[in-house]
């Protein structure tokens, strides 16, 4: 009788077993490493894990701490001994890219328990002009930045074109800022919680037409962390699987964006959905990057969760609310929870994990099985999509 070769073991699957998120806002006296440590400890506690169990560390970057080896620095300060560590830089898409990589490290068997962490004192650690000038460098250093351009100006040009092509109005964009503020009001960690109306948004001071101050996310201090592990046991609540991921990179600079109707977001999402084997109609929860109201409108519409020019109407109808058909950014998003860089984009994933797991407390939205997380870096330049799935 011939011996059969042993059946190959199925590859390990990556589960999101712990999350940590600090309040966002002004934390005077905070440091990048200190904020990262706070979120990392919260994620370990949530996962019921000791730091010695972490065998992989992935971190982002901090504009207030431009260190060559941020991951190793954090390893030393946070007393880790991982077998694998480095940082990743992909602008606002970094957090989602870190989670995608952590998932791949687990699937490949390279790591069993990966800590993903980012944070910085972006608001209190530098002058506002300094932050704005650093961020402006996502533009072309020769062809764009010398014009006195900035990230809000790039997005304003993008918005001007998008409004022109789709018939979206400034009041439509304002509706999305109002939606994020309404959601933030249920989260004690959110930076901006005062009531906001469409009229308030339209009357807020001009930044770069058509964008006003309330169309733009604030600059924040804060941090976020998640633990991605091959073994889901021990984590709180139902298992949440990182089921699929995808990326797309078509350009860096706004000048090189060919069409505002196809910036690469849909391509990344299609890859993630295909890997997950999940149809767009099965997605029941959304966690979408919202650095500006235009960002959110473009993503909702390119990803197919709203018709072109139709995001605001759906928002007004309650479609994206906690009990709506497709709850969106129930923590308040970058627009109201706040934006401290890499961790700002990770807060969406933290909220999606809590929502899928039914662990969001007073913010808990309608039950969903599949969530889509999407982040963009630069000026809709780099795109990362994740499909998260709650297992029964």
């Amino acid at each position, binding site marked *: 009788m011939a011996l059969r070769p042993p059946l190959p073991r199925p590859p390990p699957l990556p589960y999101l077993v712990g999350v940590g998120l600090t309040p966002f806002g002004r934390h005077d006296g905070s440091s990048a490493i200190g904020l990262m440590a706070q979120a990392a400890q919260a994620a370990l506690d949530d996962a019921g894990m000791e730091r010695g169990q972490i065998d992989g560390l992935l971190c982002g970057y901090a504009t207030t701490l431009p260190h060559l080896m941020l991951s190793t620095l954090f390893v030393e300060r946070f007393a880790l001994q991982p077998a694998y560590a480095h940082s990743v830089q992909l602008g606002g898409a970094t957090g989602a890219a870190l989670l995608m990589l952590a998932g791949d490290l687990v699937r490949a068997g390279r790591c069993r328990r990966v800590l993903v962490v980012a944070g910085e004192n972006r608001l209190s650690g530098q002058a506002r002009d300094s932050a704005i000038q650093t961020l402006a460098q996502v533009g072309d250093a020769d062809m764009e930045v010398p014009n006195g351009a900035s990230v809000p100006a790039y997005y304003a040009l993008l918005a001007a074109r998008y409004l*022109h092509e789709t018939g979206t109005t400034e009041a439509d964009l304002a509706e999305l800022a109002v939606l994020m503020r309404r959601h933030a009001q249920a989260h004690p960690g959110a930076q901006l919680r005062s009531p906001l109306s469409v009229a308030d948004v339209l009357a807020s001071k001009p930044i770069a037409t058509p964008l006003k101050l309330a169309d733009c996310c604030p600059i924040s201090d804060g941090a976020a962390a998640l633990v991605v592990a091959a073994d889901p046991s021990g984590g709180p609540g139902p298992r949440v699987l990182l089921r699929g991921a995808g990326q797309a990179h078509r350009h860096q600079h706004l000048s090189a964006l060919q069409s505002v109707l196809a910036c690469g977001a849909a391509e990344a999402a299609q890859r993630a959905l295909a890997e997950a084997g999940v149809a767009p109609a099965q997605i029941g929860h959304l966690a979408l990057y919202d650095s500006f109201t235009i960002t959110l409108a473009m993503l909702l519409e390119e990803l197919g969760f709203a018709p072109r020019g139709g995001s605001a109407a759906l928002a007004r109808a309650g479609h994206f609310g906690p009990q709506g058909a497709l709850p969106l950014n129930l923590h308040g998003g970058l627009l109201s929870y706040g934006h401290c860089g890499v961790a700002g984009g990770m807060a969406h994933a933290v909220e999606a994990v809590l929502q899928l797991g039914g662990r969001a407390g007073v913010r808990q939205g309608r039950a969903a099985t599949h969530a889509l997380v999407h982040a963009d870096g630069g000026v809709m330049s780099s795109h990362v999509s994740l499909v998260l799935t709650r297992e029964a």
Partner: protein
Amino acid sequence: MDSTTSAFTQGLAAGVLRYQRCQACGQALTGQRWACTACGSARLAWCDAAGSGTVWAVSQVHRAPTDAWRALAPYTLVLVDLDEGPRVMAHGGPGLAIGARVLAQPVLLAGQALMRFDLAQPPMPGPASSGATSPPLGATPPRAPGTTLP
């Protein structure tokens, strides 16, 4: 201006708007490339643009990033599709809207040699008009399009 200054920036300093064109397939390129986006060839050359184009996007910037720019705010930024094909970011004169026909002229703003696009003068009526636009008074005469620089 040292040897690392880009051909584009050198062009601005000379009052000329430049873009790259593929010497293999003829494609005009946006941005600064090492390879052609159409055919992949690395044989690219910088050319001088005529300076005429169409506004793709326009924004009036109120919140400037630096003190030097704050002194000039609000100012208008535009993305213009040049008639040669590439899209460029620049300053804009008053009264610009998406779709407007514009012409570039060199300007010095906040200590930077830049380009500003203004509304192209409507073509002169009469049988000689072929829809072509003439450069605004005082503009640097454009170099012959397609001029290849070393």
